[in-house]
């Protein structure tokens, strides 16, 4: 009996320690999930500079938590649906550790204003940064890898994630105080009245239900590979492919077996040849939209001879694009999808 009791007590101690050890560690969770885009110290990068005092002074904990939970559909920031409420709260606490002041708390009550007048004000004062429809700036955040015109990307105010996270009172506060260190000025100091600001808030809120960012992430229903069968033999198809690539304003870098570098040239499968190519201005445009597009690089189409059939194959850029949660990139990948298909069809005419 004594040994059973002792065992039970030991087990309870172990369980208690395990429970304590398992309490969410905000710093660790931030390093694992957030630091890659927001920087180790919240200085920003692909994502918003979270440690910026003027940012911290104008967002509530609830806004931060809702942003982590819902993300920004189509605007790179993913929805961290896998995190528990305790983990989200731990990350928020960690983000707050960079701020000396008390976190603001905002009422959830709607601000009453005139959205029609707000629309006029928006066009005059906000659209130049946030876009005519509140779609936000282009590209990602302050990526140091690329030249940038602005220290921070203007957020998409018509984004479902933003509208779900930001109460009217918070939007109002940002308009009144601005955000020092960013192009967002105080519109009260700039001459707008509090009534004007209420009208602006009312107009921004009217975006709700009309969000334009598509849901990103699922690849269901899309074919992962583009395939076009060739009526020619492998050698002829390869020559046709090179010609078709050149005529679509790409330059051909090289062709090599899929197994290049993994075995000797003699042993590499000669029936699977990758052709690498590039359109550098197009690449530069893609990198400006999302610096992570290396996944697509370099452009490539593979000529494969399998069971007597010669095929041209490539990744479907539209499928891979869904992983980026970047609707601007989706549009570019649609263009790339069409160019890949056009090249493959021309090579097999």
């Amino acid at each position, binding site marked *: 009996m004594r040994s059973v009791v002792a065992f039970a007590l030991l087990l309870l101690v172990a369980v208690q320690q395990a429970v304590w050890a398992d309490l969410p560690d905000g710093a660790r969770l931030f390093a694992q999930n957030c630091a890659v885009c927001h920087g180790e110290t919240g200085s920003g990068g692909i994502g918003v500079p979270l440690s910026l005092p003027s940012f911290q002074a104008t967002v509530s904990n609830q806004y931060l938590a809702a942003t982590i939970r819902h993300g920004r559909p189509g605007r790179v920031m993913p929805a961290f649906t896998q995190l528990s409420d305790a983990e989200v709260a731990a990350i928020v606490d960690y983000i707050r550790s960079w701020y000396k002041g008390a976190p603001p708390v905002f009422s959830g009550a709607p601000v009453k204003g005139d959205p029609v007048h707000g629309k006029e004000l928006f066009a005059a004062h906000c659209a130049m940064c946030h876009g005519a429809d509140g779609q936000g700036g282009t590209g990602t955040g302050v990526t140091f890898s690329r030249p940038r015109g602005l220290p921070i990307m203007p957020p998409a105010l018509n984004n479902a994630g933003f509208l779900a996270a930001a109460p009217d009172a918070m939007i109002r506060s940002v308009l009144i105080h601005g955000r020092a260190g960013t192009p967002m000025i105080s519109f009260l100091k700039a001459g707008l009245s509090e009534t004007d600001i209420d009208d602006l808030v009312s107009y921004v809120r009217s975006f709700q239900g009309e969000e334009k960012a598509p849901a990103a992430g699922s690849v269901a229903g899309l074919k992962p590979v583009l395939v076009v069968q060739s009526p020619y033999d492998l050698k002829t198809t390869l020559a046709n492919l090179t010609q078709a690539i050149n005529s679509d304003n790409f330059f051909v870098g090289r062709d090599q077996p899929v197994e290049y570098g993994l075995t000797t040239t003699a042993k590499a499968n000669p029936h699977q040849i990758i052709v690498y190519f590039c359109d550098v201005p197009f690449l530069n445009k893609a990198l400006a939209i999302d610096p992570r597009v290396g996944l697509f690089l370099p452009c490539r189409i*593979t000529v494969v001879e399998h069971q007597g059939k010669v095929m041209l194959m490539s990744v479907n850029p539209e499928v891979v694009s869904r992983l980026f949660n970047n609707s601007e990139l989706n549009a570019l990948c649609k263009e790339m999808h069409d160019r890949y298909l056009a090249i493959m069809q021309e090579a097999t005419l």
Partner: protein
Amino acid sequence: MKPLYWLIRAAALLCLALSLAAPARAEGLLMARSQQMFPEAMTTLQNAITARGYTITRLQEVNENLAKMHFKSDMYRVVFFGRYDQIDALTRRYPELIPYLPLSITIFAEGNQSIVVAMPPRALEEMFPDPALRPVFEGWQRDYQAIFDRVRETTGF
């Protein structure tokens, strides 16, 4: 005796539940920030790849190609790698996988730090739902995770 039995059983179940709790991750790309500058991070990445039994087949120099046309970019590379036997067997049986092979990880400079990014191999499960491929993708996923963890955790020179 009975309450003790239930106490021990409940505690054991709680321990099991805690041990099975998986680390949280957002869906999307696999990404990690290295505190190392690009040259050191690149070395760490290559060492981490080869430590998992892969051969690096080539390094795509992206920023050099941009520079040739006067576009500005910091250091940017794509590292290609694979295992010969695995790729040979897979591409013979599943040629539709070829466009996604060899495997690759992108690395670019971000100020004094570096960022690595890749398509998570687990994403291939949805694209190629053949159950026979699942262990392959899961194996790659574990390897990628280990590689990314090493890049994230390695500091200094």
